[in-house]
């Protein structure tokens, strides 16, 4: 047993963690900081747009348009966040979007009920995810390369299926998912919210959410703790594929005619939303909620520029600047915190200069 002397030398045992402590740790968390900054940006940009555009930003019509505009990107990015937290990446999503959109169109044209065609097209996305996970885990190809491969293959398959032409002659209900309304609310909004809430809950509340973090952060340690890292990564790829499959249905439905043309801009918007949302490319860190806010932020910026009639060319520049500024500010903050730490260490040794109190 321990002697009394050694016990007294040790720091006191922890008291039950108070709410303040937990709040403090949460605020120190850089993911939380970034989330708050992004929410702030959304509100500020929205307010500025609202004021300068004569009260046209926070209108039902504009917000409806915003929801529809960001729906596909948000759904895909939310699921791909899990892949990235697990330490991989899924580049194949635009290919999956195209092939599932085309498949849903072909099935409907050949007489399959619309709802069944949508389900089958979504499942096709899951199959692409399964193939991706086999390439990455079973064969051992880096996820970046493996999923670029499946991006090209899915694109090719979509073109073969339709001979490179758009599918025409679809019934009206094909467009309902992408453009329909439930009362004043576009159908896309509840769909996006259901997907995001489900994935946020999966990440924050379930065992799988933790296994994803562990798999991305330190795979050997995860294995030694009895976590099946291969199964975890497979589930992430399949979820990403399913989301891309469903995203493809919504995308095709919004356009009206499924076209076998890959929209690479979609891929970059997905990645930008994830990165702005604070997800690390190195795995282990990131949140679906952050990605959702990131997607909303991109949407708000685009919508604002649209409102002021700024050309798409400038919108590209804005998106680029937003991405670089977001990641750059994070780097600067990190560097400052290192500098701050040095200052505090040296300050402890020297006489303290009169400076603003160290913030942490």
């Amino acid at each position: 047993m321990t002697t009394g002397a050694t016990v007294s030398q040790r720091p006191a045992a922890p008291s039950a963690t108070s709410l303040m402590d937990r709040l403090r740790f949460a605020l120190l968390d850089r993911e939380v900081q970034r989330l708050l900054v992004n929410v702030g940006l959304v509100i500020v940009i929205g307010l500025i747009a609202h004021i300068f555009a004569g009260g046209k930003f926070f209108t039902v019509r504009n917000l409806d348009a915003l929801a529809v505009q960001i729906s596909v990107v948000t759904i895909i990015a939310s699921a791909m966040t899990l892949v990235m937290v697990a330490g991989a990446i899924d580049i194949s999503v635009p290919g999956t979007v195209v092939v599932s959109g085309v498949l849903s169109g072909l099935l409907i044209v050949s007489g399959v009920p619309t709802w069944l065609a949508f389900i089958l097209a979504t499942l096709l996305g899951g199959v692409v995810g399964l193939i991706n996970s086999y390439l990455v885990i079973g064969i051992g190809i880096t996820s970046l390369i493996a999923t670029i491969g499946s991006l090209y293959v899915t694109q090719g398959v979509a073109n073969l299926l339709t001979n490179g032409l758009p599918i025409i002659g679809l019934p009206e209900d094909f467009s309902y998912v992408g453009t329909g309304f439930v009362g004043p609310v576009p159908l896309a909004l509840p769909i996006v919210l259901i997907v995001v809430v489900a994935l946020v809950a999966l990440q924050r509340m379930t065992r799988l959410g933790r296994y994803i973090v562990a798999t991305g952060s330190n795979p050997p340690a995860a294995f030694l703790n009895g976590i099946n890292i291969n199964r975890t990564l497979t589930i992430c790829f399949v979820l990403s594929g399913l989301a891309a499959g469903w995203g493809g249905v919504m995308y095709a439905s919004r356009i009206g005619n499924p076209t076998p043309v890959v929209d690479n801009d979609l891929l970059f918007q997905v990645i930008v939303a994830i990165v702005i949302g604070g997800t690390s490319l190195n795995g282990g860190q990131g949140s679906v909620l952050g990605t959702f806010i990131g997607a909303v932020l991109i949407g708000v910026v685009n919508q604002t520029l649209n409102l002021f009639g700024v050309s798409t060319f400038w919108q590209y520049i804005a998106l680029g600047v937003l991405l670089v500024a977001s990641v750059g500010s994070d780097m600067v903050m990190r560097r400052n915190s290192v500098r701050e730490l040095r200052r505090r260490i040296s300050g402890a040794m020297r006489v303290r200069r009169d400076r603003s109190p160290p913030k942490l």
Partner: protein
Amino acid sequence: MAAEPRLEGQTAGGVAASTASSLLLEARNLQKSFAGVVALSRGNLELRHNEIHAVVGDNGAGKSTLLKIISGALQPDGGELLLEGQPVALSDPSAARRAGISTVFQDLALINHLDAAANMFLGRELTRPGWPAWLGVLDKRAMRHTAEDEIRRLKIGVRSVDQLVAGMSGGQRQAIAVARAVAFGTRIVVMDEPTAALGVREGGAVLDMIKEIKASGLAVIVISHNMPDVFKIADRITVMRLGQAVTTVRREDTSLGEIVGYMTGAYGGAEAAPPIPGQGARA
């Protein structure tokens, strides 16, 4: 996989009772080679109930290989592992955990991006009862409370179980890893170099923790380079040299000089001859 859990029930039978009473874990002639290089040729270990058993040896003596087999991280090429007299196959670390053996690995196997409580329950998360359990919904409150209790019991200086382990000191990280092993080791806690990366004071705290584990009724296997630490805590000491278990002695019956003699091959005579690759030891 087949034989690992439910040993408690089996050993309740009369046949096993005599063996079970004397030995908790027995390694018989475990062997392991890596790409033709023999790392372990005669991995023998007899662990009694509620003892602190140190395994010492020079670099490359096979200590870590033996430990990894016991913890399920490696599969032996030959030999047997018996838990309370029953042969067990530990196909992976979670099988070992289910059999009541938990390990503190040298690199601790902590996840930096998770907090202390999450790390303590990693791979063994508590779920809410009823249908949420089916979905794997975590019972974070229960886990936090248990983690806090465990930290208090082991007298670990960690301010909050909500803290990310990335921001912790070496001693705190070690303490979290030990606390995790203790919380889930129902029979045996295995530790690989638990004090190697620590300062004197933090190392002392970990040694106290090891004594606490013994006091709570478990058996401990400690692998260490640090002879003074070994002599502070061990009940018995097994010396390994060149892939073989050379001898096992009681701490009271030995001296630092004798142990070092066995480690370097000065004692041990023919028993300690270097193994011939490919030919394992005889029973």
